[in-house]
């Protein structure tokens, strides 16, 4: 639902004038309203993080345990048994560098896709910018991700791989992962409101997407003529970026990076437009 709000300062207190009518703008996002609701975003993220580890025995240790175990298994199967090439990089470091951004991405998508339906009681009972629900699920796995980075840095230290200035570019790649997840999460959460099929499809989607991303194998394994097509997956660019920044691998293929950027912008804008279009009917359909 759109609302055109003009804030007028009035005796120190801001008084909003609000017009509610049938909305028509496609990408008409009320940024000042979002800013006003920033504390709710904080609260929703806080709720998600607190609930996630309530009544668990080892609590937040799961954040480190999950990638650690995944790394060991992937190293055993793909590194040792399948003898997967890793561009000369020690396989555990090679795989963990990809598993962490991927883990963030898949969590962000899974959680945000379920965010609107999971908070149906909020959507039907109180107003706030609906976008905060998927957004909060894009933000909250970042905390897990930041913690698991400690594991990665520990491993790099153990392997004697030095950190360089390139590590400072990491936030950029994280941002691309976030915004891509945001676009995909907006589309899936919106579709989920009407079609609960989404809930069934997501595990497959994540699995297939994982094999289409250079996680267990290097991009160099992809035939040259398919690189552009391959780069349409923004996560390919993100993971290549991570390996470049942390493992001193060659700079990411500019074709792959360029395609990734175009696609993630498209997904993000498309997701926003679809979300805004459907948003007005959420409470009636959910």
């Amino acid at each position, binding site marked *: 639902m759109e609302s055109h709000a003009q804030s007028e300062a009035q005796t120190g207190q801001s008084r*909003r004038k609000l017009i509610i009518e049938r909305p028509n703008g496609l990408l008409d996002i009320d940024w000042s309203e979002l800013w006003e609701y920033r504390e709710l975003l904080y609260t929703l993220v806080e709720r998600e993080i607190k609930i996630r580890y309530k009544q668990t025995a080892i609590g937040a240790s799961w954040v480190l345990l999950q990638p650690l175990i995944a790394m060991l298994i992937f190293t055993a199967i793909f590194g040792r048994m399948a003898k997967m090439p890793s561009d000369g990089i020690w396989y555990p470091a090679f795989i963990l560098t990809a598993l962490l951004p991927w883990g963030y991405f898949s969590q962000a998508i899974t959680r945000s896709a379920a965010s609107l339906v999971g908070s149906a009681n909020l959507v039907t009972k109180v107003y706030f910018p609906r976008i905060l629900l998927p957004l909060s699920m894009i933000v909250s796995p970042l905390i897990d991700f930041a913690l698991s980075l400690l594991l990665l840095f520990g491993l790099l230290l153990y392997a004697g791989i030095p950190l360089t200035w390139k590590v400072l570019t990491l936030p950029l790649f994280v941002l691309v992962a976030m915004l891509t997840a945001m676009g995909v999460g907006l589309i899936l959460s919106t579709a989920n409101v009407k079609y609960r099929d989404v809930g069934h499809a997501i595990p497959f989607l994540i699995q297939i997407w994982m094999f289409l991303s250079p996680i267990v194998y290097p991009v160099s394994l992809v035939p040259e003529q398919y690189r552009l097509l391959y780069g349409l997956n923004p996560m390919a660019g993100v993971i290549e970026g991570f390996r470049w920044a942390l493992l001193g691998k060659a700079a990411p293929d500019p074709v792959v990076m360029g395609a990734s950027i175009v696609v993630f912008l498209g997904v993000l804008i498309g997701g926003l437009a679809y979300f805004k279009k459907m948003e007005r009917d959420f409470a009636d359909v959910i």
Partner: protein
Amino acid sequence: MREIAVQVDNLSKMYRIGARKQRYVTLRERIAAKVTSLFGCQEVAGATNTMWALKDVSFGVKQGEVVGIIGRNGAGKSTLLKLLSRITAPTHGRIEINGRVSSLLEVGTGFSAELTGRENVYLNGTILGMKRAEVTRKFDEIVAFAGVEQFIDTPVKRYSSGMYLRLAFAVAAHLQPEILIVDEVLAVGDADFQKKCLGKMEGVADQGRTIFFVSHNMHAITRLCKRVIYLEDGQLRLDGSPHDVVKTYLHSGLGTMAIREWLDPVKAPKSDVARLWAVRVKAEDGQCTDNIDIRKPVGIEIEYEVLKPGCKFRGAIDVCNDEGVLLFIALEQDPEWRNRVRPPGRYRSTAWIPGNYLAEGTMIVNVAIDTVEPYEWQFKVRQAVAFHVTDTTDGDSARGDYAGEFPGLVRPLLKWDTLFGADSGR
């Protein structure tokens, strides 16, 4: 002159009935529907039955007005609240709002069972539109209002339902919006707490805030509101002073709820031994009415015809409240007809429920006819008639001068003996 707080113009909201019935459609159904429509089957168009939950409603509310919204179930009250609080968008028309709005359509929206009372106060407060600093400032007051000080760091899933509701309401009660939208939330908690909440609401109203208040409790409506809007079938039926509007509302069911007649023998409830002609609700003076003063007796009249000779008959009624709780069953007990075979023909039996016996609210009457010796159940008509019992503020009913919520299935006026100095008298 006071500024307009809310201006509603030609507000309409349409629902697709199909979409409302099914909780959600699957992609497969959608695709299947598309494919069938491609091949020229027009079934899809038939599926879009529409219904206007609200149609061309217009009104203006000035700052500081306390407006009650009444109407029967499905009249559009909830839809209006949802539109005012921006939960759903109108199909046509517009609303202009001046000021910060908070809506309370449910107590405890967003409460998470796993979180502690403290965490939920922050969560619920910010969801309802408070700033965190504001919650911090009012925190002690909220907890004291709810009376859950010792349990504030316990997960709310360990709370009793009473504690949970009190805490949830306490957060809501401390909202300070310029415009407050409240749906029937006062119907929670024990009587003491409800009284406290009603008091808090009055306090809010006194501070010059604009309030929209939906309730089925006519007493709370007349007490809190200075103006009442009556919705019927999605349209604004009446807008005016609480006294007039509530009176019209209570009388609007006359002839439909208080009387049921079956002139057509095909449609009448019957068996081969008896047939029902009519059921009526009567006041003391014999007039049919569906609005009964709590102090006065009310008569339920059953008119039936005995078709077959040689049977012993018994009419029966049972009375339920509007929550469907069975209050009592009454079997026809006229000594004159006890154990007597009834000759065929028309009968009219009236059961008189004494005054000062039923509680306030809507009463629903089911009617049945039995034959006895051997006992045989002939037919039963569910929800044959209904009537409203209204309590008074004159002070001579069971509630005396107490004006708050007054729960209980029945409301008998008991004989009280109060002795002074009873201790020394022994």
